[in-house]
C-alpha cells in the first residue's frame, strides 16, 4: 500500500513528504525531481516568490545509490524565504509581538479555518492552506512518475483555457507530439495564437489588480487496461483521480473524457465503439470515455480536465470583515500570483502520477521492482493471450 504524508508551512523552514510502500529498487534521482519542481515554478502570471524560491529537493531517507530502499522515502523542499520569516514563524514563543491577520480573504480557507480552529491569527490557517504545499506533492509525483513509466505510462499536460480565452487543443493522442511546444510556451499552450491572447488577458487582469482562472488537461498515454476497479466506490479510478485533482488549491471541477460536453449528446455520439483488427488489435472509434470505463483504465489515453477558479488573493481587495471588531474592511493581501493555471497543469500531472502509481501497485504489486516487473510482464502476456496486443504501449499515435 502506498502511503503519503506531507507537512510544512508556506513560510516555515521546509516542506516534507514521507512516501511509504514503493517497491525497493525503483530509480529515484534528485535531478528528475528538481526538473519537475522547476516546471511547477514556470508560467506566465506568477508573482515574485517564484524568483525567490527556485525549489530543490533533498532526499534524506529511503534511497541508496539512486534506488529506493525497502523503507520509507523522505523528501524535503526548503523554503528559501524562511530567513525573512524567522520571527513571524518562530517555533518558540517570541517577545516581539507579530500583528495578527484578522480580515479573512474570501475564497481562501481563512474564514472557515479561523472559526473551526478557534484562532485569533488567520496566519495559523493560511500557512498550511497555501498552494505552496503543492511543491512537495510535485516532488512526490516525480517519484511516482518513475513507477508509472515502468508500466509504459507517460503523463502530459496542457492549458486549454485562461480567463475567457480558449485554445484549440489537439486530440489527446497527439499531445505527445506537441509536448515540446507546450513546454516552450509560457502558458503551456501549443496553440500559439491563443497563447498570445492568454498572455494579454493575464496582463490586462494584472493591470486591474485582478486574477484569472482557467482549464488544464492531463493526458496519460500508455497505461495498460485494468488499473482501478469496478467493484467498489472507493476503488473506482475516476473517483480517485477526481479526489486527487480536486485537492489542488483553486480546482473547483474535474471532468473525464468528453465530461460535461458529452452529456448534451445522444449515446450514439458519445460511447467509444470497440473495434478489432489483426494489426491494430482492439481499438476504439474515439475516446469520449477518457480512457476509463467502469472505474478502470481501458488502455486508451486517460484524459482528465480541471477547472481552476481565479486565485482569491486580489491586489484589488475584496470586501471582508475584521473578525475582532466585526467592522467592514478590505481583505488581507498576501503576496500572490495573477494566474497560476500553467503551474496547476504541472501539479495536476503530479497528482495523476500519484494515483496511477498507487493503482499500478495494486494491480501488479511486488516488494521489489524485479517482482513488480515480473508481475507486469505476466499480466501483459495474459492480455496478449486474450487478443489485447497492447498496441498503445508501442504506438502512441493512432488512426484518424
Amino acid at each position, binding site marked *: 500500500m502506498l502511503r503519503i504524508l506531507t507537512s510544512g508551512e508556506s513560510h516555515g523552514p521546509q516542506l516534507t513528504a514521507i512516501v511509504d510502500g514503493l517497491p525497493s529498487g525503483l530509480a529515484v534521482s534528485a535531478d528528475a525531481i528538481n526538473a519537475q519542481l522547476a516546471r511547477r515554478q514556470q508560467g506566465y502570471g506568477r508573482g515574485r516568490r517564484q524568483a525567490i524560491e527556485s525549489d530543490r529537493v533533498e532526499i534524506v531517507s529511503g534511497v541508496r545509490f539512486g534506488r529506493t530502499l525497502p523503507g520509507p522515502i523522505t523528501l524535503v523542499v526548503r523554503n528559501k524565504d524562511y530567513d525573512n520569516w524567522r520571527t513571524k514563524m518562530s517555533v518558540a514563543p517570541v517577545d516581539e509581538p507579530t500583528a495578527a491577520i484578522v480580515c479573512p480573504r474570501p475564497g481562501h480557507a481563512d474564514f472557515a479555518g479561523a472559526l473551526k480552529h478557534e484562532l485569533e491569527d488567520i496566519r495559523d490557517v493560511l500557512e498550511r492552506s497555501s498552494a505552496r504545499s503543492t511543491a512537495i506533492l510535485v516532488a512526490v509525483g516525480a517519484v511516482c512518475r518513475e513507477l508509472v513509466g515502468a508500466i509504459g505510462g507517460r503523463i502530459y499536460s496542457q492549458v486549454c483555457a485562461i480567463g475567457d480565452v480558449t485554445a484549440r487543443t489537439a486530440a489527446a493522442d497527439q499531445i505527445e507530439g506537441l509536448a515540446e511546444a507546450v513546454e516552450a510556451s509560457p502558458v503551456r499552450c501549443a496553440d*500559439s495564437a491563443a497563447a498570445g491572447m492568454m498572455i494579454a488577458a493575464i496582463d490586462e487582469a494584472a493591470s486591474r489588480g485582478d486574477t484569472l482562472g482557467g482549464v488544464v488537461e492531463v493526458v496519460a498515454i500508455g497505461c495498460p487496461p485494468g488499473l482501478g476497479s469496478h467493484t467498489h466506490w472507493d476503488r473506482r479510478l475516476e473517483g480517485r483521480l477526481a479526489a486527487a485533482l480536486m485537492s489542488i488549491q483553486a480546482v473547483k471541477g474535474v471532468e473525464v473524457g468528453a465530461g460535461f460536453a458529452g452529456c448534451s449528446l445522444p449515446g450514439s455520439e458519445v460511447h467509444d465503439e470497440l473495434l478489432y483488427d489483426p494489426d491494430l488489435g482492439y481499438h476504439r472509434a474515439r475516446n469520449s470515455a477518457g480512457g476509463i470505463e467502469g472505474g478502470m483504465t481501458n488502455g486508451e489515453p486517460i484524459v482528465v480536465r480541471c477547472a481552476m477558479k481565479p486565485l482569491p488573493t486580489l491586489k484589488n481587495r475584496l470586501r471582508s470583515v475584521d473578525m475582532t471588531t466585526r467592522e467592514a474592511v478590505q481583505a488581507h493581501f498576501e503576496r500572490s500570483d495573477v494566474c497560476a493555471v500553467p503551474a496547476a497543469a504541472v501539479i495536476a500531472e503530479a497528482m495523476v502520477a500519484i494515483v496511477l502509481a498507487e493503482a499500478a501497485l495494486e494491480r501488479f504489486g511486488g516488494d521489489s521492482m524485479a517482482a513488480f516487473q515480473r508481475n507486469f510482464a505476466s499480466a501483459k502476456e495474459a492480455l496478449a493471450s486474450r487478443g489485447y496486443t497492447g498496441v498503445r504501449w508501442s504506438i502512441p499515435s493512432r488512426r484518424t
Partner: protein
Amino acid sequence: MVHSLTPNLILIGFMGTGKSTIGRLCARALRFRFADTDALIERRTRRTVSAIFSEEGEPEFRRLEAQAVNDLAMRANVVIATGGGAVLNPANASVLQASGVLIWLRVEPEEILRRCGTRESRPLLAGAAEPLDRIREMLTAREPYYRAAADACVITTGARREDAAAAVLEAYHGLASQWPHLPGRRSS
C-alpha cells in the same frame, strides 16, 4: 456582407508594433494585396495623417478612417494593416471581423518607444514629456479593445520581422478554416 472563401488577414495593434512591415511580408507569402488604412487616407486626402490630426482634429481623422476601413474590408485577398486606433470604434471592429481574421500584434512599451519614439509622424505621441509613460497609459486604455476584437495575438517583442510574419501566418492558417465562426467572437 458577402464572404469570399478565403478570409482577409487584418492586423491590429498599437503604433510601432510592425503592422505595416509584417503585413507586407504576409501579403507576399499569401499572394494577397497589401493595404494600409493610414496610407489610403493619406492618398485620398493628399495630406499626412499628422496634418489631418493637427489641422482638422481627431474626430475628422476617425471619420476618414472608418470610411477607409469599410472600403478595404470589402476587398478580397488582401492583408489590411489598420491604424492603432481603428478597432477602438466597435463598428470598425465588426466590419473587419466580417472581412477576415484579426491578428493583434503586441510589443512591450519600451520597444514601441525605440521603434517610433522620435518620429514626428506619430501624432498621439508628439509633444509628450514622458513618452514611455504616455505609451503605457495609452496601452492600458487600448489593450482591452484590441483583445476584444482580436482572434489571435502574436507577441513580436525582440522578434525578427520574418519570424514575426511566420508566426502571424501560422495563426492565420490555423484560424482561416473556421472563419467566420471563430471561437470567442462576441460580435459578427
